[in-house]
């Protein structure tokens, strides 16, 4: 397993953990505090995903003369494209769903905008990492 795969695994684990713990916290806190306090506290659990950013510091550079070649570049390019496509979909849905459900004259709080931005970012990183793992063949089988 190379460094890129290790970092991708860290992102997948931290983002999954952040989303699951946030949803669990929301489910529990909803009954205790009600809205909107439950939503505010539970969304803070998303910060767990930030630990994924330490990946490049945690995992040392690969040994050997060549650490990146045409296959790595190709995989990274495909993964980045998939990540951007997924985040575009999230932003598109976040824009179109309220419009479709609430109608053209409705208003939504501005606080939704940073949340949409965060959701798009998380989706992009998550999909990017998953695609990297899939394209590398889930790592280390033939090595």
């Amino acid at each position, binding site marked *: 397993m*190379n460094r890129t795969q290790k970092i991708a695994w860290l992102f997948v684990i931290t983002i999954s953990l952040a989303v699951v713990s946030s949803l669990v916290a929301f489910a529990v806190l909803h009954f205790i505090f009600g809205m909107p306090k439950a939503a505010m506290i539970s969304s803070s659990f998303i910060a767990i995903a930030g630990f994924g950013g330490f990946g490049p510091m945690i995992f040392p550079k*690969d040994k*050997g*003369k*060549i*650490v*990146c*070649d*045409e*296959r*790595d570049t190709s995989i990274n390019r495909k993964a980045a494209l998939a990540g951007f496509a997924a985040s575009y979909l999230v932003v598109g849905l976040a824009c179109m769903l309220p419009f479709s459900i609430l109608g053209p004259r409705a208003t939504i709080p501005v606080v939704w905008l940073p949340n949409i931005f965060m959701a798009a970012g998380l989706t992009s990183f998550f999909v990017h990492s998953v695609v990297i793992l899939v394209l*590398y*063949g889930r790592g280390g089988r*033939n*090595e």
Partner: protein
Amino acid sequence: MSKIKIKNKLRQFRFENNQMTQAELADKAEVTRQTIIAIEAGQYSPSLELAIKISKAFGKKVDDVFEYE
């Protein structure tokens, strides 16, 4: 996803060249060992440039090492 139709004789030529290791071939072709493993397993089709580098490492023509089915 379409199946890769390029066959190769990397393994055969490695053994014919004093049992060259995947790491040695990777160094000669200036790629990672993972890429050589993927090419050998038929999971990745190399670029023309890389195919030429690999062929040169064996002292063969591209046609001898790679074959389109």
